[in-house]
């Protein structure tokens, strides 16, 4: 980094003053770090430390000793296992459908003229602002018992009803409201990688459109699409507000998710805190694995560019 050289030469005295005594060392250290200390304390204290605490807590028994009983309980519990599987399934389904729909749309938008493009990007950005409980409400207003679509189906005489907001597919629809625009916005810059003259060159080599996509287009785009998939997946498994508002509480809940299980345990305030910690760490592990895969995928594109 160029600025590093200039910073040191501009800031440190040129006669190479070396702090000797402990007091001087401490003063020097403070001078270098003081303005950053408050935010670092907050960040480490509220982001890193809690995670470490959870990790420890997952191995803590009621009395305070080390145990793997919590982990065993969670893995044995049917409802917990179901929650994990459903969370993974929901994340995967949402990510895949976002890819299938968002991928081609991202391609189309990247080929549009600047004015049209900005309009679409503005619409997508706006969609990402509509989220949380308000969005959950929006979907209840559409898919609920008296929702717009439900009533529309009834009036048009269609024999079945759209998915209920608290069901698996209802959640997919709600998740995708944010996930499809998210996917598009994440991959649209990657789309620019595909140069128009590759398409033309392929044509001069006798390739059809289909052949071009199969041999050149998709292989090049796959790391970006895959990275988008992983990010959307990671995002989805961690969602809490929307499923909480839609999936209901207690007995009426149709879909169990990791985040909801955690919240259940916390709300009930019973002694299962260790289990909740385990679930939290499981969530963290999935997210971390996802992120590592994401970095690996992006790293692979370096070979070609």
């Amino acid at each position, binding site marked *: 980094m160029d600025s590093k050289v200039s910073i040191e030469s501009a800031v440190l005295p040129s006669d190479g003053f070396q702090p000797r005594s402990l007091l001087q060392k401490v003063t020097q250290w403070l001078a270098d770090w003081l*303005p950053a200390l408050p935010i670092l304390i907050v*960040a480490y204290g509220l982001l890193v430390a809690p995670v470490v605490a959870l990790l420890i807590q997952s191995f803590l028994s009621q009395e305070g000793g080390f145990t793997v009983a919590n982990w065993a309980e969670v893995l044995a519990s049917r409802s917990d296992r179901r929650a994990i599987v459903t969370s993974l399934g929901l994340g995967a389904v949402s990510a895949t459908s976002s890819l299938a729909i968002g991928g081609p749309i991202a391609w*189309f938008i990247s080929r549009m003229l600047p004015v049209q493009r900005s309009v679409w990007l503005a619409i997508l950005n706006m969609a990402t602002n509509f989220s*949380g409980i308000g969005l959950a409400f*929006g979907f209840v*207003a559409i898919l609920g018992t008296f929702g717009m679509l439900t009533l529309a189906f009834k009036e048009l005489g269609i024999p079945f009803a759209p998915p209920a907001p608290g069901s698996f597919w209802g959640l997919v629809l709600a998740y995708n409201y944010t996930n499809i625009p998210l996917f598009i916005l994440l991959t649209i*810059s990657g789309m620019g990688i595909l140069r128009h003259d590759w398409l033309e060159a392929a044509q001069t080599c006798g390739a059809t459109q289909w052949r071009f996509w199969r041999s050149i287009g998709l292989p090049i785009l796959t790391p970006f699409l895959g990275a988008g998939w992983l990010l959307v997946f990671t995002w989805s498994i961690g969602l809490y*507000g929307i499923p909480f508002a839609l999936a209901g509480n207690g007995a009426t809940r149709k879909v169990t998710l990791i985040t909801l299980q955690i919240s259940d345990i*916390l709300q009930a305030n019973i002694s299962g805190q260790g289990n909740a910690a385990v679930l939290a760490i499981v969530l963290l592990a999935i997210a971390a694995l996802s992120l590592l895969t994401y970095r690996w995928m992006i790293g692979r594109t370096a070979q070609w560019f």
Partner: protein
Amino acid sequence: MVLAERMRWIGRWGRWLLLATLLVYLFLPIVAVVLYAFSTKWTAHILPDAYTLKHWGSALSDVRLVDVALRTFVLAAGVTVLDVLLIVPAIYWQWTRNPKIRPHLELTAAIPFVLPYIVIAFGILSLSGQFIPTLQGTVWLLALGHVAIAFPFFYWAVDGAMAAANIPLLNEAAQTCGATPLKTLRQIVLPNVASGIATGSMLVFAVSFNEFALVQILVGARFETISLYSLDLLTGANADFNKLAIITCLTFVIVFFMSAASVYLNRGQTQTSRLVTGAKSTK
């Protein structure tokens, strides 16, 4: 029509069909919410039975609603101010004096993107229970929590602005003119990264305003914000969709303007992953 021509025809119309479907999908929930804000009874047909403005009046005179809105607003404003005060000096120091600050900030800034907010909330609850039980359950802890999860957005916005303005160079020039660090910060750095600070502030505000998980887990009903209130209106015993629609509309308008303003200030920079705001705020 020849097969190839027919394929092309399908392709062209298919594209517009896909885009149109997406548009409908995106606008439908918003339309439904807006209609609820103006409707009387709406249980039988696709559109409401009748329209009225009275919900708006009753909403503004509802003490609880106004309290909730103000509370959320004040919390978000406070969190924003805190983030500005905490982060700007750190970034300034990182760019002009101690580059070793950067890895720490970038590492911690990545965490809210990987870690679901509920996990963070749970962790803070657990940790505070052990070490600072007096703060547990207070709005101060919540505020600090918000400061922590929103800080990446502020950091990236200001960091980008610092890079764009080439702060190291300006800093050197200021030194050759004899300026102290404080003077440089006030008169040289801040004016040049003002748009980044403004953008970052708006993002932080939106994150705090919309946030749900930390609020529910850390303070719950003791400090009822818009998201908690909305949940109660949606699924609680006194479900009131009309009022909920109004609050949702207001929230949407506020967050939308924040996002539009930040896009406007950032025109020319294309960091879409950093501009995607509202989604991240409501895990």
